[in-house]
């Protein structure tokens, strides 16, 4: 199939997935919407849909809503990192689910460094985030080494590890590190030197972390497609036996993939923590790791597509929040809508007949062209 047709197909397919999901969403919103008569219900549904689809970007008056836009971009910071981390791990065909606990650990370690390790402005924040990243990288050594040395399933191991990390941190916070003068479990405030500077001043918490995230998208894309290590990760992901036979250090590269994935997730957690909050007060898993998995799948494990997938999800989240706030649509609906979209995106056979028709058309054209050029060549001769 030629390039143009496959792009057309991808677009049509993506659009169709979204449209079907929206149809389902519309139905659900309609059912749950408030109103006495049919007309009222329809109006409420229309209002809710408007909030969902264009609310995140445009004011009702029509102008661009910069506050909402920066909210969305800010929400992308941690999920770009977890998405990248999951991309790296999944590319090696290693289904590490630990980005969730990783983001939490990264945030916690960064926060502790921000409180207890005073440093000069400028390097303090960098140090905190690096420590968070390193801690999370070390954490991923557990599933990685268990996998390569003992053949333990990395998926089960990392999944459980999330909760180990969460409860250990809970214990530390409860017993030793919380600010006892406060009514809830929270840490002492971060040093001001450790805070990630804000990019815009509208209260949206869009910090320089966003710029760092975009830089890392480029770096990780380069790493995966332009270095021997990224190449080894991808080849191992495609065919481990082939990689071994070719003389690659398979176990070492697998460990590298886990650790790098962990470093990225930890960095995302750290940037989020120091960019958005002033004290550490998380009491459960933040959800960024799960979202990272979704993003990696939507992006097809290609780092370049991660910010787009991340934007898409952040946009949808925002839209649903607006719906919940202004139209009384239950927030849980977002899960249903998201599930519908992913279902159709992930379903390989979705629209496969349409694809086959395009393929046949392309091939036939190609064959005709070839035949014509052969005949042409002969008549010239």
């Amino acid at each position, binding site marked *: 199939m030629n390039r143009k047709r496959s792009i057309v197909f991808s677009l049509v397919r993506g659009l169709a997935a979204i449209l079907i999901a929206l149809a389902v969403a519309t139905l659900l919103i309609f059912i749950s919407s408030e109103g006495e008569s049919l007309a009222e219900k329809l109006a409420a549904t229309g209002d809710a849909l408007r909030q969902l689809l264009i609310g995140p970007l445009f004011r009702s008056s029509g102008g661009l809503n910069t506050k909402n836009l920066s909210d969305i971009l800010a929400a992308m910071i941690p999920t770009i990192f977890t998405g990248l981390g999951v991309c790296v791990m999944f590319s090696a065909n290693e289904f590490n689910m630990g980005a969730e606990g990783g983001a939490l650990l990264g945030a916690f370690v960064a926060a502790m460094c921000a409180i207890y390790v005073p440093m000069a402005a400028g390097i303090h924040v960098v140090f905190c985030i690096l420590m968070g990243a390193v801690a999370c990288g070390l954490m991923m050594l557990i599933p990685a080494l268990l996998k390569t040395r003992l053949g333990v399933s990395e998926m089960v191991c990392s999944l459980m590890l999330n909760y180990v990390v969460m409860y250990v941190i809970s214990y530390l916070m409860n017993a030793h590190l919380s600010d006892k003068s406060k009514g809830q479990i929270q840490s002492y405030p971060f040093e001001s030197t450790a805070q990630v500077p804000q990019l815009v001043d509208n209260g949206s918490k869009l910090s320089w972390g966003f710029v760092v995230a975009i830089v890392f998208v480029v770096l990780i894309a380069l790493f995966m497609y332009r270095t*021997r290590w990224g*190449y080894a990760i991808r080849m191992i992901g495609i065919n481990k036996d082939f990689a071994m036979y070719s*003389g690659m250090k398979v176990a070492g590269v697998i460990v590298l993939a886990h650790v790098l994935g962990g470093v990225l997730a930890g960095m995302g957690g750290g940037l989020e923590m120091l960019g958005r909050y002033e004290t550490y007060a998380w009491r459960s898993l933040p959800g960024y790791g799960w979202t990272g998995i979704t993003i990696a799948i939507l992006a097809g494990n290609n780092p370049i597509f991660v910010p787009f997938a991340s934007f898409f999800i952040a946009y949808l989240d925002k839209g649903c929040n607006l719906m919940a706030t202004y139209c009384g649509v239950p927030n849980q609906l977002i899960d249903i809508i998201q599930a519908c979209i992913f279902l159709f995106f992930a379903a390989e056979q979705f629209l496969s007949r349409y694809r086959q028709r395009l393929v046949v058309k392309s091939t036939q054209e190609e064959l005709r062209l070839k035949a014509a050029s052969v005949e042409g060549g002969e008549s010239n001769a």
Partner: protein
Amino acid sequence: MAEARAAAENSVEEYVVQMKGITKVYPNGIAANQDVDLFVKKGEIHALMGENGAGKSTLMKMLFGLEQPTSGEIIINGEKVNLTSPTVAISKGIGMVHQHFMLVPSLTVAENMVLGIVPKKSGIFIDYKKAVEITKEYSQRFNLHVEPDAKVMDIPVGMKQKVEILKALVRGAKILILDEPTAVLTTQETTELFKELIHLKEQGYTIIFISHKLNEIMEITDRLTILRGGKSMGVHNTRDVTKEEISRLMVGRDVVLSVQKDVAKPTDTVLKVRDMEYVNEWGKKMLDKVSFSVRKGEILGIAGVEGNGQKELVDMLFNLNTPNAGTATVNGENILGLPQRKIREKGVSLVPEDRMVFGIAGDGTIEENLISDRCGSKDLNRGPLFNMNAIHDSCKKLIEDYLILCKSGKQKVKMLSGGNIQKVVVAREFSNDPVLIIADQPTRGIDVGATEFIRKKLVELSRSGIAVLLISADLSEVMELSDSLIVMYGGKIAAYFEDTRELNDEIMGEYMLGLKRQPEEQVRRVCHE
């Protein structure tokens, strides 16, 4: 083609299978068949010939309901059919024996025979006795001898094939498709199979026979259809065409079927294997005191029926498995138990038997597959980054040198035909300055053109001073290419022939089937110091 169609319409009853104007486009855009016609008469053995990638398998998959044609029609016994699944095809009397047997190794022959059509006792229990009876009955009727109570994993390849044929017959097949049935058989087994096939033909069964081997086609078939590049090159009466004509129609040019090579002048010993022993996980001794040497500038062939220790031997040499005893050195240095990277550093290259498992990463591009063993080399890297231009240039050169047919180096390897995939493997393995090349079944299941190319390359490399160890189940290939040759049987070296020139199939067959064995001293001569 138009005449063929007209002729077919005149005498419709004559044909049991009519495939008209079949076109098949796969989801990856490859047009495997373009307007292909296949007309098979009742009670004939009809050969379907063509290089790999010519579309034979695709055409047969459609006839067996595994794939559906994009356009065209299939008529069986005068009735237009829509073969949506193998179940439908079987109900129309079509049976297929695949190249790779579809049997359950841990079950007995009789159990395999009735799989899916199990005779029941009082509706619940499996009636094993009945299964054995059915097996015996069919086995006698068609003169295909099998042992109903033996487990499939314990029986020889030849018998497995008979089980497959019987399986199809039990299910009521009148039209049998045999996909390269002789690829895994010895000369003797092949002769036996041919007798059985003729017996079937005499009883009114129709056989479609897929093969690359011209001799066999000439010997057994009545008519033949040749495919090339997804198109039909016409149908011929076998007795009216010569081998040379067939191969020209298949390849589109004259093929040199025998390799020209001058006498080897072997020098220093490169690979030295001594007293290698291996007992597999089921306690079977697969390698029994195997000792041999390969010298610079020679091709040492290992012949033998598959499953006599060749695979295990190669596994040991490339550390895919660990021997129980013995040594192996390359230029005096041990290679056993080293990581593959170290083995490659010592100059050992391997063309693996199973190219899809070890040879390639199917979802990777051609370029990615060509650099897998050298991705860390200075030439291809600039600091921490790949030097994309250098990679592109060196791959482009390999693609040209090794005649890999592709749109570009960025194409996915799995989109290529079998022969071209093998050329990718060979291009990589031959181009990393090896001192020893282990070529394990280097031309299995690939087309004549690619086979010829790879064989020539092997000879060329050996004459340039590289030691070559060639393992092949294709008898004519080992005999033709090797300078000297060992035969493996039951994990032992059964014979050593210093000069392959006066050998023939008959002598080889006796050693390969274990009927004869050379005395120890004679075999020991293969150990050069």
